[in-house]
């Protein structure tokens, strides 16, 4: 325990920070693209909007909670990289699964249909992406005395990533390349960052 006091500060900009930032970008870009994907089938009435927000936030909350427990059990960057990779694969699959799913759910009605669609399409990747946040914190906190700083910095980074993702998706990707490619680009970004560490045994 006391080792923390002597050990030099952890590298401030490394794999963990990069993943946290990029996963922020991917999460927000995927959320916006998902809203766009679902609108033609169910419109944008308040019930649809409420479903979108509720499922996204609930999935993230579950991801945070679950990710924290997993992180304490596997506090190594390789496990985190694999989580990120799994998340990016799921994001890339969203538009693919959407085609048959939206056809099936369109006739269920706006409330039930949009709920089901969000639950199947968007919730699973968001749980996985949410899990990366406490994981990053676990990897970066090396003493209780410095925990506040590490946590605050990672939250800030993730939020800044969200801001970039929001803007990139709404102002550039969705109008320029369309919804499907927005998912694929957002997923590829995260996969590109996670891939090198997913099978590496070196520390971050």
């Amino acid at each position: 325990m006391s080792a923390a006091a002597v050990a030099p500060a952890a590298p401030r900009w490394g794999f963990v920070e990069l993943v946290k930032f990029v996963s922020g970008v991917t999460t927000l870009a995927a959320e916006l693209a998902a809203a766009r994907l679902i609108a033609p089938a169910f419109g944008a009435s308040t019930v649809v909007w409420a479903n979108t927000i509720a499922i996204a936030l609930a999935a993230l909350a579950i991801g945070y909670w679950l990710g924290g427990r997993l992180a304490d059990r596997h506090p190594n960057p390789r496990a985190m990289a694999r989580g990120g990779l799994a998340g990016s694969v799921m994001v890339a699959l969203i538009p693919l699964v959407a085609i048959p799913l939206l056809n099936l759910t369109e006739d269920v009605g706006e409330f039930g249909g949009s709920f089901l669609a969000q639950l199947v399409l968007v919730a699973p990747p968001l749980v996985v992406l949410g899990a990366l946040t406490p994981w990053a914190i676990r990897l970066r906190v090396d003493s209780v005395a410095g925990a506040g700083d590490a946590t605050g910095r990672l939250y800030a980074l993730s939020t800044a990533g969200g801001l970039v993702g929001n803007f990139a998706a709404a102002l550039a990707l969705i109008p320029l390349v369309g919804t499907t490619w927005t998912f694929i680009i957002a997923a590829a970004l995260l996969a590109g960052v996670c891939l090198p560490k997913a099978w590496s045994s070196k520390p971050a």
Partner: protein
Amino acid sequence: MTALESRGAERGLRLPLEALVFAVGLSTLGAEIAATRLLAPFFGTSTVIWANTIAVVLLALSAGYKLGGTLADRRPEPRALCVCVLVGSGLLAVVPFIAHPFLSLSVDAFDEVSVGAFAASLFGTLVLVAVPLLLLGTVSPWATRIKLDTVEEAGSVSGRLYALSTVGSLIGVFFVALWAIEAIGSQRTFLVLALFPALIAALSLFDVRALVVPVVLGGALFIPAGATKPAEEGDRVLYERETPYQYARVIEQEDGDRLLELNEGQAIHSLWRQDTVLTGGYWDGFLTMPFANGSGRPPARVAALGTAAGTVPRAYAQYYPETVIDAVDIDPELFKIGHRYFGLEERPQLREHTQDARPFLRQHDGPYDAIFVDAYRQPYIPFYLTTKEFFELVRDRLAPGGSVIVNIGHPNDSPALEEAMSATMAAVFKHVVRDPIRSQNSLVMASDTPLSASGIANAPVASDLKELAQDSAARLEPPLRGGSVFTDDRAPVEWLIDASIVSYAAEENK
């Protein structure tokens, strides 16, 4: 040692720290939504406004997280955290009271197209929201630091607190968007959002001085809210209300005309005149244009998507009382406003549907002789009502010889949206024509039956519609060319309109 210290410190609180984290999560995201609704009556909800709001809110939170982490390591004491929350809450409560001078500045800025005043007004308001959010943002990392006993549990402790804060956010969003803004207005919504974390912080501290903050905030709930937006000279505000979707306001001008404004009021969504159902606006075109298919009779069955307060159904009730109309609007409040202020009368031929236009059309088979599309969420047409897939659905719901007529705005004289929509309609229908009925609006009509000006000119209409029909026939022309076909996957409606707004503002300020 540190572990024992922080344990002991938390025991000094009367409520678990989790309660504070939850309350602050609720308040921050709630405040973000409330801020958008506070701005909407003055600035609207275009991408430009939305992007600035999101950017300021997220940057403030981001800075708050960073600051919170630093403060946490320096003072890992719950009491300091509670004081920070009390200050943040107090500042949040002040927002609606000092925002009004900034917001009112925007009304003149719109009229004079003054980008400087517009930006000052927008950022003035946003900074007011940003400062309290920055202070509330410190809570997450700070609470994590206080809760943490050993490095080995850093993942589960931070994950649990963050999850709790997110659940709070979920409830905050629902509270504000689904209930508070409509039920108690934006001023009291901000007060409640401030009161909740302040109360938890004060109870945690259990200190008489701290309790002053929630007591004052609670007292402020009794301050009357007053009008949301001041009336302009010569106008009388008959009615104003936050609906589930927007801020709606009914204006009566000096000449007695009534206008329906939504949000910032740059567009007029419905028009009522005392002794006539004719408006002199684009709405009149829906009375004569359907005859372009040469049928020589008015449509027997119509779906009007996006009717607002019912200007078109009202006119149909007078000129074509036999026509059965499915009037569709997403906002239930607008039908009520129509009945109260815009002469919309209940009759068996009129069916009102509170629904989004595309799901409505999917669930109703028709077949319709005419489908009118006039659904706007200013300054945009919802993208899913502009695509090839949408017009395929429309075509499927039309009776043989039926047609679709779309009202397309030309924001700031830019024809880009009409070009794209004409191309999209031409990709689905055999025939497309346009009537540039007003300088800012075109009606674009599509059908698989040939469309001609002579059909309109020779229409057997009432004598007071003859002149309108002749004018419409004279204006009828082939559609604009040069646009690309929109699809559900790619329909950059917002992009085209934002580009025209930006270039217009740049021109005016040269």
